[in-house]
């Protein structure tokens, strides 16, 4: 029941049937529809913007008019003081960053190895697999603070020859041990999501077990778990500060020292800002990557 409106069969006068030309003009009805839609959207956006402005505004008003606001501002947001001590916090933050770089790269290697052991299938590796499982469970389950204390203070107590008692080194090792457990889990879940057929295809091509991992499984697995790995990186940056309990001065500890000196909390706020300056770009990147992955996934089999 096609109605012969504005279309002629076999009309091949167009240079190509794909070319829709620039001739199209929105119809009357479409124009009214667009106006109606725009109006409705504007109204809704206005309501939403208005309501969020009201919420945020009233929060600010409550804050600023509260009896303690002046006291709070002086204790938490004394910017002049904040700027004054910022160099000290930044100096402390270099510890966080150095540790993040050193620990991060070690964690990548160790976590990967543990993940490989845990996802291996050879019966010969069963004891190692079991050990790896215990390792991961234990270090995921204990607060990292305790691990740092036990390693940072426990190992020197052994007085082993040739073993350092440098707290920075030991603290870093404790961080590496804990985060390797986290990262091993993430990588393992990535490896497990690679479809078994990919492995089968690689083995069918004659690639050895190791080559299959190296060229086929890992590149895909790592790519898939990049968002959670970046999350762990953000967490690592934040958690490196825990080794301050061993006497190393990181950004939070630097802030704490200042606060303890002056009994003013602005250093903590400054420390929070310093962390945000690094972590927000990271979380944004994670987000973009996650979205891209999902878009690709959802494009397949779109109804």
């Amino acid at each position, binding site marked *: 029941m096609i109605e012969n409106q504005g279309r002629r069969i076999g009309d091949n006068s167009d240079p190509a049937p794909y070319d829709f030309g620039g001739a199209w003009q929105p119809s009357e009805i479409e124009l009214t529809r667009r106006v109606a839609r725009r109006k409705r959207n504007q109204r809704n956006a206005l309501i939403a913007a208005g309501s969020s402005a009201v919420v945020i505004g009233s929060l600010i008003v409550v804050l600023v008019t509260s009896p303690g606001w002046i006291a709070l501002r002086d204790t938490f947001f004394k910017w002049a003081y904040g700027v004054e001590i910022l160099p000290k916090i930044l100096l402390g933050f270099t510890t966080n960053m150095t540790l993040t770089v050193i620990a991060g790269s070690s964690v990548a290697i160790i976590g990967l190895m543990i993940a490989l052991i845990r996802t291996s299938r050879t019966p010969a590796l069963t004891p190692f697999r079991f050990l790896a499982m215990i390792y991961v469970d234990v270090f995921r389950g204990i607060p990292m603070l305790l691990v740092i204390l036990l390693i940072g203070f426990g190992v020197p107590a052994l007085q082993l020859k040739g073993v350092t008692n440098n707290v920075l080194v030991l603290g870093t090792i404790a961080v590496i041990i804990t985060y390797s457990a986290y990262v091993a889990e993430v990588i393992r879940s990535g490896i497990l999501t690679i479809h078994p057929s990919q492995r089968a295809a690689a083995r069918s091509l004659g690639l050895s077990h190791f080559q299959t991992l190296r060229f086929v499984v890992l590149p895909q697995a790592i790519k898939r778990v990049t968002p959670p790995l970046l999350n762990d990186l953000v967490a690592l940056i934040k958690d490196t500060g825990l080794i301050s309990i061993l006497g190393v001065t990181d950004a939070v500890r630097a802030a704490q020292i200042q606060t*303890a000196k002056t009994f003013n909390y602005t250093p903590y706020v400054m420390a929070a800002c310093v962390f945000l300056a690094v972590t927000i770009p990271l979380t944004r990147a994670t987000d973009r990557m996650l979205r891209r992955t999902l878009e690709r996934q959802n494009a397949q089999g779109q109804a």
Partner: protein
Amino acid sequence: SAAEETATESTTDEAVICAPESLETLTPGVLTIATGEPAYYPWVIDDAPESGQGFEAAVAYAVAAQLGYDQAAVTWVRTTFDAAIAPGPKTFDINLQQYSITDQRREVVDFSSPYYKANQTIISFKGSKLDGVTTLQGVADAGAKLGAAVGTTSLEVIESAFGLSPAVYNDNAAGVTALKNQQIDGLVVDLPTAFYLAAVEIPDGIIVGQIEGSDASDQGFGLLLAKSSPITSCVTQAVDAIRSSGELANITSQWLADSAGAPVLQ
């Protein structure tokens, strides 16, 4: 002259065993002294122990001098509480940050003889539940919440003297903030700290009172050394020497306010 004689004799005696050349310090010829970060008034003035200003800074230099180290032969390091008490090699020769000597602690570290014994003191603010309380029983009856920093004897005092369970803070700074926020009604600190906090850091701060002899196990502040440190006996001798020479009393009166300024809870 005879007294002089013995004094010199004993000095030479010490010199044989307790001189920089023979003391097995971390760095030979140098005495490494640790304190907290930050170090508080009036124990150290302006967080600068190198200046020798403040009670513990002065004690440290006096002990060092007694051992034969001149100003230049003293280096300062900072340790956290946990790092100081951790087993294994230390980063310091002696550590002073108001460590109370107890027998339990002696199992793990060495202490010199005490250089100061402070009463624990409750501070609060005007208009609090504790304002006007004058007796120990009164504190217990006021239904007050007391706080103290971890690692201090103040903590045990709250339990032993009042049977209250304390709010425990990482350091006095957090305790002061909680007190200012009225999250606790009183903070227990040692008396010298109490004078400073009540006067400077707490708006309308008051000293409620001292708790006398509240903790039997507390034998006063001592210099902390590694367990079985080779210099423990020398350090103890040095502390004893400055005590008996009256130097310690001088330092005490120079830096610490007279305890008479604070009422004692009955």
